[in-house]
């Protein structure tokens, strides 16, 4: 199944990803330097002594011409030296690596849940066109799809945490519980308990996109000759729907995922902020609020990297799944 064109294709996609990343870091570089005022004041902690300031000034090459600065900046990024966070007084890279698993946990679980739910419901409404089921599911789905998810999050917190007291208001772990050295199962349960509301927020507000994509794709697949042939052979509806039509209808939905990634990263930032989920998005928000620019740059870099990597992964998976695609 894998042939030469495939490897070539992957290489090209990765190269394109690297170019995108390069564009992103260039944008960050110029953003922080084109702005009026002394860029040093943005990078330096006001609490530092003049000697320390001079040292950092040199390490960023801020006394050199702008192109040299750009070179130093690129070198720093490639060697993952993104400076120190003022707030934590720790290297930015270390903080980001600490937060990355939390973001990935929320992001991947929500994407998977939303896709599964969307594909499942899309299959149903494509099969039962013009029915009340389609009508109700569409309106309910659209209602949540167009709801600002930070607002949905606040309302869910109000109902489930504040009024009913079922779930924690925010955060990822219960520090009190963790200080008593609980067993691993208790730890997992605690994280799941905290994960529930953010996960529901993200899923509810994004499954509808998948549902409609699946519906459109499925409606078109149902008109294909092989589906009609299957019907003529007298196969049960369920088999035709799940084994014949849905399999092929799922393929275009996967590519459409790519277009939504940038949006779902934005949604992730908002959700993390509402629920104080200790991920990269929340860190980005907090660091920009506190003018902790090295950390803000690092978080933005990491979020872009996540976007790019997921775009490439989906693309490659898709071209692997669909043998009809050409690799040039």
């Amino acid at each position, binding site marked *: 199944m894998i042939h030469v064109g495939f490897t070539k294709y992957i290489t090209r996609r990765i190269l394109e990803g690297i170019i995108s990343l390069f564009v992103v870091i260039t944008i960050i570089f110029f953003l922080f330097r084109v702005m009026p005022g002394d860029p040093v004041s943005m990078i330096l902690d006001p609490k530092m002594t003049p000697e320390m300031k001079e040292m950092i000034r040199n390490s960023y090459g801020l006394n050199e011409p702008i192109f040299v600065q750009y070179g130093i900046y690129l070198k720093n990024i490639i060697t993952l030296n993104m400076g120190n966070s003022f707030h934590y007084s720790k290297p930015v890279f270390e903080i980001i690596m600490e937060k990355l698993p939390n973001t990935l946990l929320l992001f991947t679980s929500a994407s998977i849940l939303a896709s599964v739910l969307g594909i499942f419901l899309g299959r149903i409404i494509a099969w039962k066109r013009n029915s009340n089921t389609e009508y109700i599911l569409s309106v309910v789905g659209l209602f949540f799809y167009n709801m600002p998810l930070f607002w949905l999050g606040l309302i869910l917190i109000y109902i489930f945490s504040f009024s009913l007291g079922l779930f924690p208001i925010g955060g990822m772990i219960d520090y009190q519980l963790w200080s008593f050295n609980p067993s691993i199962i208790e730890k997992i349960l605690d994280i799941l308990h905290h994960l529930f509301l953010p996960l529901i927020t993200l899923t509810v507000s994004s499954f509808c996109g998948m549902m409609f994509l699946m519906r459109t794709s499925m409606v078109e697949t149902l008109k294909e000759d092989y589906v009609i042939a299957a019907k003529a052979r007298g196969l049960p509806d369920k088999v035709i729907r799940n084994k014949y039509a849905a399999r092929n209808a799922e393929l275009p939905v996967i590519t459409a995922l790519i277009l939504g990634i940038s949006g779902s990263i934005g949604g992730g930032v908002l959700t993390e902020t509402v629920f104080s989920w200790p991920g990269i998005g929340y860190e980005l928000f907090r660091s920009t609020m506190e003018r902790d620019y090295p950390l803000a740059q690092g978080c933005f870099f990491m979020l*872009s990297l996540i976007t790019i990597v997921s775009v490439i992964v989906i693309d490659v998976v898709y071209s692997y799944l669909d043998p009809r695609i050409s690799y040039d």
Partner: protein
Amino acid sequence: MIKDYINEIKEIFNENWPRFRSNKIGMIGLVILIIFLFFAMFGPIYVKIMGPEYLPVNGMDLSLEINPNTNSYAWPPSLKHIMGTDAKGSDIFSQFLNGSKLGFIIGISIAIGATVLGTTFGLISGYWGGTLIDSCIMRIVDIMICIPFLPLLIIISAVSGSMNLITFIIIMIMFSWTGVCRVVRSQTLSLRTRLYIDSAKATGASNCRILFKHIAPNVIPLSFYEMTMIVGAAILTEAGLSFLGFGDPTQMSWGMMINYCRAQSHVFKSLWWILPSGLGITFLSMAFYLIGRSFDEIVNPRLRKRK
């Protein structure tokens, strides 16, 4: 040429209006849209009738006393303030009306800008498909798709202090055209191989004429559909950015209302403050979405419902 487009739009309208009218989902969207349009127009009139204490941004009702339940000037809905007041005693109904005006301004200006940009690039890219200019445009689109733009907006507004509305709209236009471009390009790619294009070429029509006279009218319905999708996305993005506190502080948008409510920790104390703005965002962007969807069903025969 502009006359042609107006005629084209008129024709599309005359042909499709009866179909649209029988489309339940589309009509719901249109009704919601008209209601919000009324809200948006009514905003300034309301302030004029009620006086300067009702100004959305810095008006406040000085006759209010502190509400013991919320420890601020936030009072639940009453006859004087239909939707209640916020923590500093400002009228929420007036803010809500102002928010719907801003929602229309933001959504529609971004959608039109992005659609014009995307359609132009899509036409060029598709018509000269396979050439250098096409691959340049498509690579730019690929790169743009990889940039998470809410975080980018956060960084930009953080660096530049605060972002005013015009800057926000321009940046959003720069990042929202890619979807339209892709769709228009693929449509143009298939249109340019049609016979009538060949015959236009044979009679000596210039590329420009073919592109804008023969191909563009055929992609307008698609662009229009994409446009309605962008409106909702733009309103939601503005709300998200304002919610995080990076919006234009001189404008009381719906997102800003939610931001103030949360910043003054009134979410659990005064639901009346947070509900109208969230529902406003939801219904306004949903209205555009519903209209777009039903429009898509009408112009896209493959999706048309069987009678």
